[in-house]
Each structure stands twice: as structure tokens, then as C-alpha cells.
């Protein structure tokens, strides 16, 4: 049975392009909008790609900046210069 990974981000001007990038890159993810926050769920794994976010915000972006908008997450984390990946290993 697949296990769900999730990431919860603030619903802010900074986070919106990240949310957009996640929903574009991860097919079949479920987006829940709560007051002030957005929770994204997906089976097995979820990836935030540096290139997709950079393309949307028009400047260099370090995946570490994700932590400024992140509220919570579920899954084992694999962080790199180019992506931020959540999965259950």
C-alpha cells in the first residue's frame, strides 16, 4: 500500500511559485488549501525542483530557501543543490 508523503507551505507570495512548481512537477498530487497554509500530499514521493522554481521566480533559488516558507512535512528527506525530495524509504 502506498504511503503518503506531504509538505505544508505558507500561502504567501514567496511560497506560491513553489507550490505552483510542485503541482506542475508532481503528477497526481493532492492540494489542500487551508486558511493561510497549503498542504500537498502525494503517494510515495514528492520533489521540489530548483529549476522549476527558478523558472517561475526569475532569479537564482536555493532549495534551502524552502525552509523559510515551510510549515511541516512528512517523509524522509533527501536534499541536494538541485532538488528537495520527500519519500518513504
Amino acid at each position, binding site marked *: 500500500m502506498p504511503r503518503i508523503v506531504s509538505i505544508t507551505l505558507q*500561502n504567501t*507570495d514567496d511560497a*506560491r*511559485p513553489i507550490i505552483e512548481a510542485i503541482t506542475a512537477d508532481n503528477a497526481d498530487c493532492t492540494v489542500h*488549501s*487551508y*486558511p493561510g497554509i497549503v498542504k500537498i500530499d502525494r503517494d510515495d514521493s514528492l520533489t521540489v525542483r530548483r529549476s522549476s522554481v527558478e523558472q517561475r*521566480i*526569475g*532569479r537564482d533559488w536555493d532549495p534551502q530557501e524552502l525552509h523559510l516558507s515551510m510549515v511541516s512535512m512528512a517523509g524522509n528527506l533527501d536534499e541536494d543543490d538541485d532538488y528537495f525530495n520527500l519519500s518513504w524509504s
Partner: protein
Amino acid sequence: MTIDIKTLKVEPRRHTFGHIARRLGADKPASRYEEGTLDLQATTNFHYKPLWDVEHWHFDETRTAIRMSDWYALRDPRQYYYATYNIARANQYQATERNFEFVEKRGLLASLTPEWRDTLSFYLLPLRHVEWGANMNCTDICDRGYGTAITAPCIFSAGDHLAMAQIIGRVGLMLDGNLGNALDAAKAAWMDAPEWQGLRKLVEDSFVIKDWFEQFVAQNLCLDGLIYPLVYTKFEEEGRAKGGTAVTMLTEFMTDWFAEHSRWVDSVIKTTAAESPENKALLSGWFSAWGRAASEALTPLAIRVLGAEKGPAAVEACVATLKKRATALGLAAV
């Protein structure tokens, strides 16, 4: 007793302004850049044509021969509006400030060879007048241009040129121990030295270009596209062997700025050229005319700095890079 806390979700009636929603095709949250740019400029209900230009309205698409079905297609890939622009520049300027402190504290400019110190004063300091000219042009484009998408980044660019003129001025003051003689000599060179007269004429000619889009191509693509690589790459490479490493630190801002500025200019030119073959022909014509004029104007300066052999070769290399860039943007570069 258990207390059950329930969250009540209130759906906002609107996520953004009506005119932005119409552009985005749906009422979804828009970025600050979009809200601060799209359809901001007035387009209608101008009561009288202005006395200073009776042929046109205050904002008038016919001030240029370029035709766009939508002037807001010319978006800035950097997504600069007031806040993002200022935050980005404040950070860059802080770095510049630190570099100046670093160089000053260690007296690094003392390691310049006397001969290169003269050359440096000769090629770098008069450039503050070129920067001032660029400031004039960018302000003028902002004034006569059409649509906030293009005019706003132009005025940001104008501010950047003033900042760079100041950086050059500070290098001049550092070179002569705050006496200001170096800057006076630079002004004299700008006015009288034969090596500078071609460029001075070109800058002055660019002030009176009637078509603001032509002015955009002349300033942002041709002049900037040759001056920055030539001065801050080619000249400084030559200077590094002569104790000029510190100067590269002081002018780091220009190198970073040029790379970033080019991204915006490229996107504007590319979108405009892709709009119609007429636009493409106009842009290509302006590019080849102003590109040639700029390379001719810079050659005497390059010869003075790099010598009779390396100078023209350096200009040639910069022209080749610029032509490659223009071809990639869809212009017919000749």
C-alpha cells in the same frame, strides 16, 4: 470535557484585481510583480494632447515604429517591481561597499604599476559620463515608452547607471586620495582627448533618437553590450598583470549587473522580434547601425588601452559575441 476546535475556511471573494484576473484568465492569486505591472499605465481618457508634443497623446503607441498587439508581452524575466528591485540592489551594493572597504584598508590600489594607473584613470573614470548618458537615455525611454512592463525596468536601469557612475567616481577619489583631481582630468579627457570623442559623439547622438525603441536598442543592446564586456572583461584582464586585481573587485557590481541586465534586454528584444517580420526588420536595422557605430567609437579607446594589435582584436571579439547574442534573439545580424 473535550473542546473540538474547528477551522472555518473563508474563501476570499476575489484573489486579485479584476484587470489582472482578466489577463491571467482566472481569478487566482497573482504575484506582486504581476499586480504591480500589468495594465498599470493609463490608456484612455486623455483630454488634451500635451503642449510639449502635440502629435501624440501622453501615452501613445505611435511614438515608435515597433508594433505590438500587447505591450505587456514584454515582461521582465527578473520580475522586478519596487521591492524586489530594491532588495536585490541593496544586497549588491552592500557587497560593493565591503569591497571598497577591503581595498581601502589594505591600500591595494598602491600595487598598480604607475603606467597602468594612468591607463586606468584614462579609460575608467570618463566612463562616468557615459553612465550619465545611459541614465538620460533610460529615463527618456521610460518617459516616452508604452506600457509599464517596459517603462518600469527602464527607470530601474536608469537608477543603476547612476549607481555605476558613482562607483566609478569613488574609484577616482580612491586613486587620488580624495582630491578630486583625477575626476577633473577625466572630465577633460572626456571633452578633449581624441580617443574619447567618437564615444562622446555617439552618446550625444543617442540622446536625440526620435524613436524610443531605437533608443532602447542603441543603449541597452549595442552600447551596453559592447562597453561592459570590453571595459570590465578585456581591459581588466590586461590590468590584472599590472596590479589591477583590486580594480576588478571594485567594479564587480558592473559585471554582475551586466549579466542580469542582459537577461531582461534579451527577453524584450526576443519577444518584440518574434511579434512580426516588420519588427524584426526594424530591430535588425537599428542593431546593425548602432552596433557598428559603437564598435567604431570604442576602437580608438581599445587601441590606447591594449595597444594597436590587441585593441582592435578585443573590440572584434566583443562584437562577435554581441552578434551571436543578437542572432540568438532572432535578429538578422550583419
